């Protein structure tokens, strides 16, 4: 579904991603696993069209979306949802408005119905009139996910979504995320540095280090990988 062909991207003269070739299958939950600074977030941003690589091509559903420093399909036309690391909830909008805003702009019908349906799905109905700063960490997380899901993306990008949550909450949200793929017919790309998270939910894991793929495969394949870096990474 998503294909990177010889993608290179640098930031302030430092190579973040170097001649990367990558394939992500449709309707699967793929984890990009790696340490901080390995290039995982950059890959997500390249998929979303928020960064433009210095060289290489990106395909989504066999359609060329980025080609050698040229953005062919802008982010809003890629049918993508993005859960940012800082969640990027609009602080001056209520929960309801955070979720409804995209629908309003697209002039969708039955906005109320759609918003309350998803709020109910995540158990957030009674928080509809609250502002983000009035919510708990887990609630914010779910609002961010809801906001993306109401627009029916085909691809959901999640950048370390559980970084600030406690174990119990992580479990709860991971369960939600696991179900998203089936219930919403999504391709999910999930970035994390926590291999336990990856092993809980991923159909496929790609281990990244210094902008290069160290290993990719199923959970079992990664667990049994002979790659020195992967072995070292999984030790902790």
């Amino acid at each position, binding site marked *: 579904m998503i294909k990177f062909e010889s993608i290179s991207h640098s930031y302030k003269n430092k190579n973040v991603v170097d001649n990367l070739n990558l394939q992500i299958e449709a309707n699967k939950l793929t984890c990009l696993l790696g340490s901080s600074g390995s290039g995982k977030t950059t890959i997500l941003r390249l998929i979303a069209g928020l960064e433009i690589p210095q060289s290489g091509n990106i395909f989504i559903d066999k359609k060329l979306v980025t080609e050698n420093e040229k953005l062919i399909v802008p982010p809003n036309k890629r049918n993508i949802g993005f859960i940012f690391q800082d969640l*990027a909830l*609009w*602080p001056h909008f209520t929960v309801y408005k955070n979720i409804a805003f995209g629908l309003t702009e697209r002039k969708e019908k039955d906005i109320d119905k759609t918003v309350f349906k998803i709020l109910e799905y995540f158990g957030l109905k009674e928080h509809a009139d609250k502002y983000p700063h009035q919510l708990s960490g887990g609630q914010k997380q779910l609002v961010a996910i809801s*906001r993306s899901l109401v627009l029916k993306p085909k691809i959901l990008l999640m950048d370390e979504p559980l970084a600030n949550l406690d174990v119990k909450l992580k479990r709860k949200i991971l369960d939600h995320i696991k179900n998203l793929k089936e219930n919403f017919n999504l391709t999910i790309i999930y970035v994390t540095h926590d291999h336990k998270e990856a092993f809980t939910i991923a159909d496929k894991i790609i281990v990244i280090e210094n902008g290069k793929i160290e290993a990719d495969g199923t959970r079992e394949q990664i667990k049994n990988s002979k790659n020195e870096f992967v072995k070292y990474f999984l030790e902790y």
Partner: protein
Amino acid sequence: MNNNIKFINFFNGHKFFAAVYLFFFLFIILPVFYIFANTFLFDNSLVSNIKQLDKNTFLLLLNSSIVAFVVSLFATFIGSVLGFLLYKTNLKYKGFFKILFLIPLLISPYILAVAWKDFFSVFFQNAKIISSYFGVVLVQVFIYTPLAMIIVGNAFTNIDAHLEESGLLITNVKDVILKIELPLIKPAIFSSFVLIFIFTISGFSVPAFFGIRVFTTEIFTQFSAFYNHSLAILQSFLLVAVCVFLLLTESKYISNASFLSVGSKGTNKKLFPSNNTHILFLTIWFLISVILPFITLVVQSFSKGTSDIIKAFDLLESAVGNSIGFALLASALIVIVGFVAAYYSNTQTKSSSNFFDWSLLIVFTIPSIVFGIALIKFYNRVVFNFIYSGYAIIVIAYVGKFSFIASKIIGNAIKQIPQSLDEAAQIEGISFYSRIKNILLPLILPGIFASFIIGFIFSFGELGTTIMVYPPGKEIMPIKVFTIMANAPLALTSSMTLIVLSVTIFMIAILYSVSKIFMKNYGFYND
């Protein structure tokens, strides 16, 4: 992608932004370029004028730079302290003090200089102390400290409480302020420094009044005594070069730093408790910077009873409406231009300086009289009569002079907003203008209002360029004060100044109240 191509692509793709940029370029930049081009390319006296830029010229420029540096340093420091006390503590009646502390900024620099000299004459029987570099620095610090107060204070408002609270768990309040808060608002502090530096170095009236020779005295002399416009413009170019160098230094130092500090609004704003030391500092500063010159003006105004104040009312009555109208219109345009420039600089380009920024800076920096001459030489043509002989020329002058300030203040506000908020909206397919209207603008409202109010203050009191271009028969308050001042009793001049001051304060109080209503809706206020 090459920055120039980015620039063209961006403005090509966003018509409103392009229209604003074109307006600024055609109406304001072009006259300045025209006059510089004439001086450098078509003037036969260029070579002989360049020869006159001798060692003394550069020494004078250095001298003026040092004075400006000292003023900026003190004004920014004191302004930052005031900004903290008035925007980050739970002091009572803060709103009231925020307006009162603006008073020195609202009084024309020349008149403030006169008031201070009179104060020293009356109370110390000796005006020599103040007719010196000390006086030049003192008066200009009083004038520009409120500017730093507004800029830095607004930046303090935007800091997320969590960032401070996480610090308070580790260290004391003083360290949190010095090591967490101040670094977060570095752009605001630097902007404040740069703006005050430019104001000081390109200002003329205060040093001239105290008999201190500065670089702009030289420019004024060339214009007015020698009628050597070309040399004056050449000298202005040097002034611009100094300011450009300063701006380059600022952008290099600031550009890589992270200043994202906007979190949730409303109750997540941290206010520190005030104490007696704070109150003492505010009281002392209030007495010295506001009460003393104000009392001097009041005493002078009423020295012969109320006859002078009544006469002053009569003289200024016809000019009030015009002055307020032009200043309000100009402020709106200043905010629009400043926003467009700031938006492009802070969101579309990794380099924090571009042609638009430099244009704003150049027009801001060149001495008012030079800008005035540029506008005359460009607009004084039959085809532009509808601009030159009407009110438009005055509004153009204001917008040209002060858009740079707005771009700095708004730019600092934009820097504090995480890019992810806009990116999240982009991905949702929210249109460009909708993102600006619904996401960005509400979050930078304090910066927008601060720019509007500052734009109003400066436009309302602007004299140097306005005197060169205002159409005959049209009355504007500061011009009226200064033309009457030429041979009016001191009491009348002081009365007129008091009235101008009162009108300004009244307008600012209204603007503050309006801004408060707007910002409450977006959870900016909890005082």
